[in-house]
């Protein structure tokens, strides 16, 4: 894992999106798995969202709550700190990944423990917490089934909601049989690839961890400023195990996850499960406010993480990406994600939201290809339960990438030259006529059955991934002149 931004922001350092996507597109199994997964979740989401005839009003309210929070984030963070502290919790502030990792490590060390159980959390993936803890001699056990699969396979998550969607049942069976024994209770002999059997093997493997763990680490879906209540939304019950059985709970939360009031949850608890898994409600939602005597952890630590979020907040167009509630609806409707999968994005945040969030968190210069990993079709905006205008942010970040590249380069790029030439040609009717006649002749020479597969010269890069229709034999202007002058002559 490299750190090009030099400020502790973790970037996975995989190849740039176009190269990674090219490899992913060759994987027909991956594409089949993804298509099935995204279309299934998409249909479920549409069905349960359409049960609510005020879906648009809920989205509008959610966007407004997030906007109010963002514009007064300092106020709400201070209020959250006060309410969590009053309820018996301890609040820590982490400027970047390195500081957050250091805080968590020290908190675990203070308990004398060398193991932690973990709830699936995007924030801790973003800061590379598991890897850091491993370096410090502390083993972090992922307890979400998909995260367990990813961890056992030394793999990376490929989707926000279903991180192991790129693996099929046989691959998972083989992984469990080979690896579970290295981490704890081995998989039972004769394990088949039946999902129920695989889930049962995970249950047995992890139960001994839950019952003995002394420290748990979680993320947070929401934290309520006025009450200090923290919320985790999940399905399997591993979250409930981690949140209630170990005596110490450490929650790492991006500063943008705060919501002003308890009442605001009535909006998000309707939007999130329906947008995410396509259910009316997820199986388990846990809320806790500080600590409770005789129930759950005796010590609760809340780590508030910046790690590039204040930079994102400073961009008045880009800041809306901080409203994201990590439902992954945008991934499932994205034609680009559906074909490339999550790994190609090289970030823990894949898909459309990753394409706008990652470059802002790590600096656009370090993820310059991601704002271009989109067709700008707008499906993600329609799907987003908090109305993040992802296409608007993509276009805005593309401009930032281009401006940055122009500022750094002395000689113009082929793209810039082409655009400049196009501007000259389009600005002169005479030049356009010449260009159209030339294109018609050249195009016919290059075309096969009306399509041009590959363009010559500097246009090759553009044509690598798309066909171009052959120019018509006659331009509209020529046609117009011919037909119109005939008609006018008839009058």
């Amino acid at each position, binding site marked *: 894992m490299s750190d090009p931004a030099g400020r502790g922001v973790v970037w996975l350092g995989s190849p740039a999106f176009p190269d990674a996507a090219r490899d992913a597109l060759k994987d027909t199994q991956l594409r089949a798995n993804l298509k099935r997964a995204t279309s299934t979740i998409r249909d479920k989401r549409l069905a349960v969202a359409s049960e609510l005839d005020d879906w648009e009003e809920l989205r509008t309210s959610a966007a407004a709550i997030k906007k109010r929070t963002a514009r007064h984030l300092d106020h709400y963070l201070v209020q959250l700190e006060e309410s969590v502290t009053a309820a018996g919790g301890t609040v820590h502030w982490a400027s970047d990944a390195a500081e957050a990792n250091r805080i968590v490590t020290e908190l675990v060390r203070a308990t004398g423990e060398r193991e932690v159980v973990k709830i699936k959390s995007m924030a801790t993936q973003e800061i590379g917490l598991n890897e850091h803890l491993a370096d410090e001699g502390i083993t972090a056990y992922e307890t*979400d089934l998909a995260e367990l699969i990813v961890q056992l396979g030394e793999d990376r998550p490929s989707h926000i909601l279903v991180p192991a969607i790129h693996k099929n049942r046989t691959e998972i069976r083989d992984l469990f049989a080979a690896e579970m024994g290295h981490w704890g209770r081995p998989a039972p002999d004769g394990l088949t690839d039946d999902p129920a059997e695989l889930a049962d093997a995970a249950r047995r493997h992890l139960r001994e961890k839950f019952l003995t763990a002394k420290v748990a680490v979680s993320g947070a879906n929401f934290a309520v400023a006025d009450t200090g209540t923290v919320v985790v939304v999940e399905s399997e019950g591993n979250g409930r195990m981690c949140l209630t059985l170990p005596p110490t709970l450490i929650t790492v939360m991006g500063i943008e996850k705060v919501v002003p009031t308890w009442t605001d949850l009535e909006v998000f*608890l309707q939007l999130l499960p329906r947008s995410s898994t396509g259910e009316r409600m997820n199986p388990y939602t846990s809320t806790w406010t500080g600590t409770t005597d005789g129930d759950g952890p005796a010590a609760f630590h809340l780590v508030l993480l*910046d790690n590039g979020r204040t930079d994102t907040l400073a961009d008045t167009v880009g800041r809306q990406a901080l409203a994201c509630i990590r439902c992954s609806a945008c991934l499932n409707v994205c034609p680009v994600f559906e074909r490339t999968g999550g790994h190609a994005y090289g970030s823990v945040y894949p898909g459309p939201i990753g394409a706008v969030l990652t470059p802002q968190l790590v600096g656009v210069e370090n993820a310059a290809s991601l704002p271009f990993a989109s067709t700008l079709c707008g499906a993600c905006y329609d799907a987003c339960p908090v109305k993040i205008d992802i296409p608007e942010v993509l276009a805005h970040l593309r401009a930032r990438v281009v401006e940055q590249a122009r500022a750094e380069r002395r000689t113009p790029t082929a793209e810039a030259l082409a655009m400049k030439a196009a501007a000259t040609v389009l600005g002169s009717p005479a030049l356009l006529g010449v260009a159209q006649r030339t294109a018609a002749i050249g195009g016919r020479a290059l075309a096969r059955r009306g399509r041009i597969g590959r363009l010559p010269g500097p246009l090759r890069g553009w044509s690598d991934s798309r066909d171009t229709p052959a120019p018509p034999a006659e331009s509209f202007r020529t046609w117009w002149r011919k037909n119109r002058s005939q008609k006018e002559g008839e009058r």
Partner: protein
Amino acid sequence: MSSREAILGRVRAALADVPVDEIPEDVPVPRNYRRAHTAPGDDLVTLFAERVADYRATVHRTDETGLTDAIAAALTARGVRRLALPRDFPSALLPSGPWTWHREPLEVPDLDALDGTVTLAAAGIAVTGTVVLDTGAGQGRRALTLVPDHHLCIVYAEQIAADVPDALGLLDPTRPLTFVSGPSATSDIELDRVEGVHGPRTLDVIVVDPTHPEHP
């Protein structure tokens, strides 16, 4: 400078476009959404029962006089014998029969050795088919309804709120809350839904409804 001051300073600098005299309430939050996705006169108890059953939980309906028999029938159907009970669970509701009842306090390994648990609830949510536990009367602490493999939960008709906004308004956020919608489930393997990973693999809900005098 502490990280707290640094982060708050960066937040304030990032919000230079926000007028200094703007207060949070100046940013309007329209709340034109519905308080409940039900119509006046809807039978909330029936809706709740249908929506809970949608999650592959088993729903039983009875009136108060049939409750003990309903508990016995549900436990018999599941074949569970050794059950954990909240400290204050009403003994009068317990059926006599082959069951052994283990009241709190119980250590987590003891809970793990039991077959199931029987509790009351704090609220139900009709539209989403959700049971809410707040560790209050007859519910026990959170581990009780988590570690054993079977959870039988009793919800009274008058506890059922129409929808999420109503339910949140009834609940006390300072208590630890658990919203339960069906048994533990995962869809992580090829999106095949499997009930039962870490939480209870089976969920039975008995709705106590005075207008429903059917006994099991």
